[in-house]
């Protein structure tokens, strides 16, 4: 079920009312109810893949208990390896099998030998990368004795399958989310209001910004050979806003929905396009994934300790793995490598933790230096997104090459019409609201304290009307494919 669908518009109020009227008294009832609706939510897309989540749940639940009860080092290692094997095995098969087969064939053909292996006809289960990482973090943390395994099967099932963040994150840690399933949630007015505000802003980012930017980004990326440099740059900028609106919009809806049921999920985006350097950008973009890789890959590798070579190696590995996590395509891998190249100079010069505070914290506007840094960082991310959006490496390099050879004779592929003016104004509106709320968890957080009542009400109605106006395309979220 998509968040931006009529189905969800019916599903959410219904589950919300049922949850707080019929199931609010006992924790077990709440968990059973949440598991049921989560399975309906996921099964709405394709019920057959419920079996994969069920496998992950059962395997990790049992291994968690066994890890708690066993003291022997070897047996604990075997149990952890089993959990990692099953989870990553499913992920590798469904997401990466064809990538390896195709590259295997290509490698042999380069050697002058042709081998006949058929690609497997697979459908990528929605959100498999997200819930796999979530359950993996549970068993790894139990193995490392950072948390105790739970015996409460219903709480664990609800934790893994919790519908708001099941298909596109935030990737929650058991340490943060699981305890919330072990206690009875109580309705809280302020939390629920905050949740609704976040959902509203998330819907705006997805339906109004991302889906409209998608039209222009697709037009240009699908016909990039016919576009001028200006057209190509505009296409890349539109994709930059599309992916931000799409993914951070999803995260806002997910976190806001969780709040309606009394849960606190991690912040996943902290206004990344206002970053002053790439290191800051990566502390603000897809925070739950970055911190996952930091805790379970980067730090076990040695992190920022050791020789310069080791540090560079670790950074490369983490960005490479992050790129590969996004998809079975060389474009994602090179996107990761490019970001590593952006990041490493900052790390070597020990400038990667220079900008940890919110930009222009006590001012309304950034100073010139901050502004220039922000524009530079934004431009670097725009360039990197070209790799991310392109179908293959040839297209990506050709796209970038065409930007720099200035084929001005070609058209921009986009005509200046009312639709383009409207989306440009909407992007400006997005930037203003986000800038205004940059010090908060989300752009509309606490606006009842920060804004005048009538400005607030006007903004709410404007956003709702814009959502209703642009609603109906029900475009899938980009991050579902990851």
């Amino acid at each position, binding site marked *: 079920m998509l968040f931006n669908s009529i189905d969800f518009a019916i599903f959410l109020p219904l589950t919300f009312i049922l949850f707080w009227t019929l199931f609010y008294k006992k924790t077990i009832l709440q968990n059973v109810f949440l598991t049921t609706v989560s399975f309906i939510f996921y099964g709405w897309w394709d019920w057959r893949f419920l079996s994969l989540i069920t496998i992950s749940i059962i395997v990790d639940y049992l291994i968690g208990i066994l890890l708690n009860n066993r003291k022997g080092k070897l047996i604990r290692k075997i149990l952890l390896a089993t959990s990692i094997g099953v989870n990553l095995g499913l992920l590798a098969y469904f997401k990466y099998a064809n990538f390896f087969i195709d590259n295997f064939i290509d490698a042999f053909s380069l050697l002058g030998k042709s081998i006949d292996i058929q690609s497997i006809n697979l459908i990528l289960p929605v959100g498999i990368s997200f819930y796999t990482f979530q359950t993996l973090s549970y068993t790894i943390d139990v193995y490392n004795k950072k948390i105790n395994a739970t015996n409460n099967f219903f709480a664990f099932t609800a934790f893994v399958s919790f519908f708001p963040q099941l298909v596109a994150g935030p990737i929650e840690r058991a340490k943060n989310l699981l305890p919330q399933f072990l206690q009875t949630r109580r309705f809280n007015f302020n939390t629920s209001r905050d949740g609704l505000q976040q959902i509203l802003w998330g819907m705006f980012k997805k339906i109004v910004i991302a889906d409209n930017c998608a039209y222009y980004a697709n037009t240009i990326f699908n016909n990039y050979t016919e576009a001028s440099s200006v057209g190509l740059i505009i296409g890349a900028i539109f994709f930059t806003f599309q992916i931000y609106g799409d993914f951070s919009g999803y995260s806002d809806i997910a976190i806001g929905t969780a709040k309606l049921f009394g849960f606190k999920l991690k912040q996943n985006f902290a206004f990344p396009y206002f970053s002053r350097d790439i290191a800051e950008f990566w502390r603000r973009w897809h925070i739950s994934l970055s911190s996952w890789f930091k805790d379970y890959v980067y730090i076990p590798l040695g992190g920022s300790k050791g020789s310069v070579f080791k540090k560079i190696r670790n950074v490369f590995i983490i960005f490479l793995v992050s790129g590969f996590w996004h998809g079975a395509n060389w474009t994602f891998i090179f996107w990761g490598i490019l970001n590593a190249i952006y990041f490493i100079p900052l790390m070597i010069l020990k400038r990667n933790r220079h900008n940890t505070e919110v930009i222009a914290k006590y001012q309304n506007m950034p100073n010139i230096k901050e502004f220039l840094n922000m524009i530079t960082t934004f431009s670097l991310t725009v360039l990197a997104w070209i790799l991310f959006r392109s179908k293959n490496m040839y297209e990506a390099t050709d796209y970038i090459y065409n930007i720099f050879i200035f084929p001005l004779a070609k058209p921009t592929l986009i005509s200046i019409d009312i639709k383009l003016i409207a989306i440009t104004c909407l992007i400006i509106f997005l930037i203003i609201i986000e800038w205004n709320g940059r010090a908060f968890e989300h752009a509309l957080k606490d606006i009842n304290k920060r804004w005048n009542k009538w400005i607030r009400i006007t903004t709410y109605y404007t956003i709702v009307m814009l959502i209703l106006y642009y*609603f109906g395309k029900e475009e899938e979220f980009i991050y579902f494919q990851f």
Partner: protein
Amino acid sequence: MKRFIKKIFYYLLGLMILLLTNLTFNIIKSNSEELKIKKSSVVIIGDSHPLKAIDPNLFINANNICQGAENYIISYWKLKKILSLYTPDTIIIGFSNHNISEFNDIKFYEKKYASTMFKRVFLIQDFKSLKKLNNNFKINKKEYYTFILKYFCLYPKFNHIHFIGTYENSKISEITNAEERANRHFYNDDTDLSYDFSKTNISYLDSIIFTCKKNNIVPILVQAPVHKSYYNLIPEKNKNKYEFLKEKYSNYLINFDEINYPDSLFYDSDHLNEYGAKLFTKKLINTMNKNK
């Protein structure tokens, strides 16, 4: 919880008042809006083929009200609406191979067409009769009601008539899209098989001819020229059925089979450009005059 529900209720109430105000205004306006159309003696109806091929300015008194992707169902509804205003002498109807393809049946169902089609026809539609004729005909109800809600409730509109098209063309000549066009008209994206012919659309074409005769209007079926690169890609099954229908409608059909225009007269593989339209329209007028 009560306080939360109450707050939401008040916000929704405000929203409802706003939406209902727009709805009321738009309903009143759409019901009272009169169709202002040139009462010409010749009316040209159909899709983008006659839209681009027949220049009404070359007639003494004609009006081209075609719209791209229009099927015979919509053409019939348009005709009924025009007849409620006045009775023209002649109706020219586009009649090409793709008009009888089942591709025309997806216009009220497939997302990429449905909302545009609903916007055009909501004032003239008669889905009940359509369903009566073919109970299996697919209409995307979810899309229809979403359209109606969005169209009527979001903001006040002053123009609700969207079903009258007009002749438009250009001097461009770019004939490279034959495969894409033929695939769209004759092959189903989902199955990769060629479309069958549409019984429903053929029935509506019969109804258009019947209605014309009943009102003493001369119906003329016209096949606008298409480029050979496109024509060669039309499945034989469709061509055979089309030939059969040409026989059936021979009394109303002006046959332009012999036309073999050069590339420079085509806008793309299945539409004439401005030059082609001029030439073709003159030929059409001459033939009509001869047949009088």
